[in-house]
């Protein structure tokens, strides 16, 4: 049983870890593509239109991959973990059904958008509208799926009377606090991750170019794109910071054991410090190098240094989340802190010393941090999901109880990760080929 459970958890973890990369690009690229197309229409700039068109090809490719990996996850949720829906299907089944609305909109308008770039009967603004519909479809889909995850973290919208569901309120479950908090925090996170990564690709091109050629018309376009992408990333980063604060307060109030595990806060106390570094020693202590910021955890939890924050001691030992998520949190916060310096630095340099943007060291620095957003998203979701353990539906169904009792998933546990690697490789090769084709074109935007 333990082996099967581990295999199923690994399978789910692999699937989500792989899928989320495609999700974050699948959510961000439509926004960026319609933004660039909007600028192209307003400025009557064919180059910007070509940029939007090129990125829309990557978007379509990543959506194909995302749909494949997403389908596997949907099947796992139902077939590998039937206990989740067996328990809560009456409440949370509807959002799954509603996702098909958004899925249909996204699929149809993506196909239409891609096939009408050069259609003379479709006006520029109508084509742009098709793009907006893709954004609506992908964002709506993200919301309903996040709402299901939020519900698993804090099940709401029902009462249980005599062992049966009563007073079921599907809308309350769909628009619950965790659903809203997770959505408003994860979306800017995806935008930061994808925006920064694409900025990194353009900066890498500039980094590889001879300094004397950096002033050419071709690279002016690159600089323009970098500037717009950095603006996009900076705005998303600000929203991400604001919503991170909301998330901290939400956790303190509703999922205190998760916050306690993230911060290795063993005892319930006021003036709780924020622990940076160190790992759990297994005996209720911390080992390794670490330092504490006095009262910072209390401040994060409820805006006052004297506020009392619940510790791990309030939760039974066997119901505590794995404490290694503290290390994930530390790494995540370190990466965010670096980004909080680098992103404003770009704007300061651009404002005060724009010539420095040709400096190889600076360009190299931007390239070096461009993958941080992807790592932050992965770490964030690992903290959320592992931090809910041992529960699948917090307080009601454990992960072990949710697992299918009729089939051993070990075979698929090996098969699917291998398939993901193949899919990842093929997608990478396909993107490389699209870039090569674009570069070979007359008037290429790359």
């Amino acid at each position, binding site marked *: 049983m333990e082996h099967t459970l581990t295999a199923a958890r690994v399978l789910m973890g692999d699937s989500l870890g792989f899928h989320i990369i495609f999700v974050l690009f699948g959510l961000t690229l439509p926004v960026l593509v319609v933004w660039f197309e909007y600028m192209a229409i307003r400025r009557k700039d064919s180059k910007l239109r070509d940029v939007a068109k090129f990125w829309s090809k990557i978007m379509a490719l990543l959506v194909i991959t995302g749909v494949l990996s997403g389908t596997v996850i949907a099947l796992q949720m*139902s077939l590998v973990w039937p206990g989740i829906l067996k328990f809560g299907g009456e409440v949370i089944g*509807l959002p*799954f059904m509603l996702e098909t609305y958004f899925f249909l909109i996204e699929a149809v308008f993506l196909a239409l958008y891609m096939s009408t770039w050069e259609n003379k009967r479709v006006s520029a603004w109508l084509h742009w509208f098709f793009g907006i519909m893709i954004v609506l479809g992908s964002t709506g889909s993200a919301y309903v799926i996040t709402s299901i995850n939020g519900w698993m973290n804090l099940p709401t919208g029902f009462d249980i009377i005599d062992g049966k569901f009563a007073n079921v309120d599907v809308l309350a479950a769909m628009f619950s606090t965790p659903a809203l908090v997770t959505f408003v925090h994860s979306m800017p996170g995806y935008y930061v991750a994808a925006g920064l990564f694409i900025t990194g690709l353009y900066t890498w091109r500039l980094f590889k170019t001879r300094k004397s050629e950096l002033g050419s018309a071709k690279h002016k376009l690159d600089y323009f794109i970098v500037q717009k992408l950095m603006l996009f990333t900076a705005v998303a980063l600000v929203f991400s910071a604001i919503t991170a604060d909301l998330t901290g307060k939400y956790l303190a109030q509703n999922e205190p054991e998760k916050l306690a595990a993230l911060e290795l806060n063993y005892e319930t106390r006021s003036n709780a410090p924020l622990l940076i570094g160190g790992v759990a020693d297994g005996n209720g202590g911390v080992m390794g190098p670490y330092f504490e910021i006095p009262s910072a955890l209390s401040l994060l939890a409820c805006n006052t240094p004297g506020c009392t924050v619940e510790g791990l001691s309030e939760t039974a030992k066997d119901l505590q989340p794995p404490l290694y998520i503290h290390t994930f949190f530390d790494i995540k916060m370190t990466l965010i802190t670096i980004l909080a310096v680098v992103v404003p630095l770009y704007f300061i340099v651009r404002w005060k010393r724009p010539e420095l943007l040709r400096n190889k060291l600076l360009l190299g620095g931007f390239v070096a941090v461009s993958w941080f957003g992807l790592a932050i998203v992965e770490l964030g979701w690992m903290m959320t999901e592992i931090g809910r353990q041992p529960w699948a539906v917090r307080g009601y169904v454990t992960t072990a109880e949710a697992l299918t009792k009729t089939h051993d998933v070990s075979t698929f546990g090996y098969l699917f990760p291998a398939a993901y690697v193949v899919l990842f490789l093929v997608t990478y090769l396909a993107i490389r080929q699209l870039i090569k084709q674009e570069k070979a074109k007359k008037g290429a935007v790359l």
Partner: protein
Amino acid sequence: MLWAYILIYVPILLFVVAFLYETYLSFLRLKGPKKEKRGYVDATWEVTHTLLVFGVVMLLMLFTKSIDRIAEVIFISTFWAAVFLGLRGALYIYIFYVRKKPTINWMDWAFALSHVFAALLLVVTALSASWLLITEKPEANLQFIPVFLPGLALILAVIALPIMSLYKNK
């Protein structure tokens, strides 16, 4: 209850028609790749896939009270179908995005055959699930239907014209 079956079987039937057409095209292109349209569907690929997802989601979400029984019956065929759909997806990306020369080799055969295996396994899934619905008559989440249908009507109205235009111009 009739609506529950309509929501499950109509998209599945539409998927079967569209998927059979794609299977036919995947074998047709083995005679020699066409330069134009690459001899295979492009734009409607995801729409076809969405129909399958729609049908399966309806089956699973409308019968969540019996999901463990349904999962037990369709587990193996559905997961193997997912494996072949994944293989088909990876080969699709390789053949139409990565490969430079318009040639026909074992990958194109694997691509065409992956359609057949996925289709056969999905038929097994559909038949097993149907047999369970007929023999065990599980209780459905019918409370979702009055909420779901008006929205679906609106969505279908929004996508009707685009979808017609897509398939007409394919």
